[in-house]
């Protein structure tokens, strides 16, 4: 392998898509399979510029089905492989990702959300939450990080490769068009210099020796003959998922202890939510802030605790309740009232959130 892209920590000013490409190189990603769709294109643009210099590969496929399935092939060959997509591309991506779920494949996909349904806008939304967390004909056996800023895009892209290969669940970094396209300052670093161990990939196929002679062949399938056979396999997956969830679930929270109203948000919207809560606190209002970083698995215990302590949960998102559905499922039966503040496909400002929180206090 050629010299490292990042030899020492430094401050940079980049677009989110460029950050993802840098993070993937830093994480030791070996091959990207991609198909153009806005707003994720520049991940491919930067990757294709960096890749030959650092001995990495790229394949532009014929569509997102192919991008997803070649990524599946890449990880089965034992390489850290990834893809990136958005919107209608994410819809197509659900088919290969359901295969990854069925076969416990450590695929990594970066999703830069755009408006929906259908082609909608190429700009921004948080409308790919349901699809990214529970898409496909499966049970949502995925890990989904929802990032809020460029530092997190860098940190969690690196982390995505690590958790994918450690736990063997398909892993997603859920960004959006705002994060993808805007420029922001962040610190880039070599993860190993920071003591972050990079999990080594292992091949599923093409291990040394002749199958049937020196070793058993790797026979990988996602189809079963009878219901009970599938049921048993899934029970093991659910057990593994529950065990993983405790180690992987992440969140940020402050001022929740005595809060009457807790503002719940995720991703880029949580930046506005954070400021709104800080402002209201200065005014002496009993408002708190909670933001899951992982949308799958959710920090369930913490959410339940909040929902039994606070009077109201103000759920703010740039979608018509996709995030709220995930939350409500977890907190079902709790005492707090859920107050929605949904603006599908558009950004939400600090002022709007503060006003809404004030209104319901």
């Amino acid at each position, binding site marked *: 392998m050629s010299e490292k892209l990042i030899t020492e920590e430094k401050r940079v000013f980049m677009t989110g898509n460029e950050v993802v490409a840098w993070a993937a190189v830093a994480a030791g990603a070996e091959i990207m*399979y991609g198909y153009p769709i806005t707003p994720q294109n520049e991940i491919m643009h930067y990757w294709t510029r960096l890749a030959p210099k650092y001995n990495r590969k790229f394949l532009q496929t014929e569509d997102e089905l192919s991008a997803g*399935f070649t990524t599946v092939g890449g990880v089965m*060959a034992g390489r850290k492989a990834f893809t990136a997509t958005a919107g209608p591309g994410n819809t197509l991506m659900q088919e290969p990702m359901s295969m990854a779920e069925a076969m416990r494949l450590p695929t990594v996909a970066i999703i830069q959300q755009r408006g929906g349904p259908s082609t909608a806008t190429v700009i921004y939304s948080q409308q790919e939450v349901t699809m990214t967390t529970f898409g496909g004909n499966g049970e949502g056996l995925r890990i989904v990080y929802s990032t809020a800023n460029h530092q997190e895009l860098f940190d969690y892209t690196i982390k995505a490769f690590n958790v994918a290969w450690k736990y063997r669940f398909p892993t997603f970094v859920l960004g959006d068009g705002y994060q993808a396209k805007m420029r922001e300052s962040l610190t880039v670093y070599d993860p190993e210099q920071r003591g972050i161990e990079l999990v080594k990939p292992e091949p599923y196929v093409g291990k040394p020796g*002749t199958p049937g002679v020196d070793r058993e062949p790797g026979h990988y*399938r996602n189809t079963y003959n009878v219901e009970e056979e599938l049921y048993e396999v899934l029970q093991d997956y659910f057990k593994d998922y529950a065990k993983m969830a405790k180690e992987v679930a992440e969140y940020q929270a402050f001022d929740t202890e005595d809060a009457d109203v807790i503002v719940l948000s995720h991703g880029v919207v949580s930046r506005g939510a954070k400021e709104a809560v800080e402002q209201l606190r200065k005014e002496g209002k009993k408002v708190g802030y909670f933001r899951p970083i992982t949308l799958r698995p959710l920090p369930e215990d913490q959410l339940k605790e909040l929902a039994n302590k606070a009077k109201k949960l103000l759920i703010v998102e740039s979608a018509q309740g996709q995030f709220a559905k995930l939350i409500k499922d977890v907190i079902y039966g709790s005492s707090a009232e859920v107050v929605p503040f949904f603006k599908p496909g558009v950004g939400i400002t600090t002022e709007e959130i503060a006003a809404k929180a004030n209104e319901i206090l």
Partner: protein
Amino acid sequence: MTVQPAMPKCWRPESKPHKFCPGCGHGLVLKALGEAIDELGIQDRVVFGCDIGCSLLSWDFFNVDSIQTHHGRTTPVMTGVKRANPDLICIAYMGDGGGYAIGSQHLVNAATRNEKITVLLALNTVYAMTGGQMAPTTMPNQKAETAPYGRDVEETGYPTQGPEMVAAIAREGAYVARGTTANLKQLKSYIKKALKNQMEGKGFSFVEALAACPTNWRTNAEKTWNFLQKDMPKYFKVGEKKVPGAEEKEGQ
């Protein structure tokens, strides 16, 4: 004591007898493939991918690393494996529905990009696993579950000529042929050439094999054989369609 015909060495005895219907062509295609793998001595380097449809029943057929994928998606999965580890010899095995309908964009683009993989496609003119629906390759006037009065070419077009299509779009270096399970020796030689083409890094390789489906054709042994050996080749001409180096010779 009965003498059993020898199985290819790379076949997995534990998964035999295989799961295909009596008279099915898949067993013969996989026999030709097994012998080709044995003769080339590549059992340790082969990755075998199988599609959805009857071809999926081959997921544990060989003592080689195998991946059962989704309908039509074996071509991209094998492309992904090959791109990530070019030392492996990747074989994408599918039926005509997987290759020419739901996965046709993958076949076309893998051929266009000259992916260094081998696609082996069993053509039996029907969707067999799902119960005998019309396929892209159903013959004119042939009856199928979704064409109960016979395929009307005015309504549904003519059968896909797969190797001819691939030969037309693939560039120099590609190997394309159509064999038949009615001539296993020839089919094996085509498969061997296709695999060698991949091993030598020349380009994309594609072999279609005419195969029988007595279950869905609703035919007895005699009628099955007649359809396979006489009717199908009238439309689907057996032979090599593209051989590396042939274009240079033509120019001389």
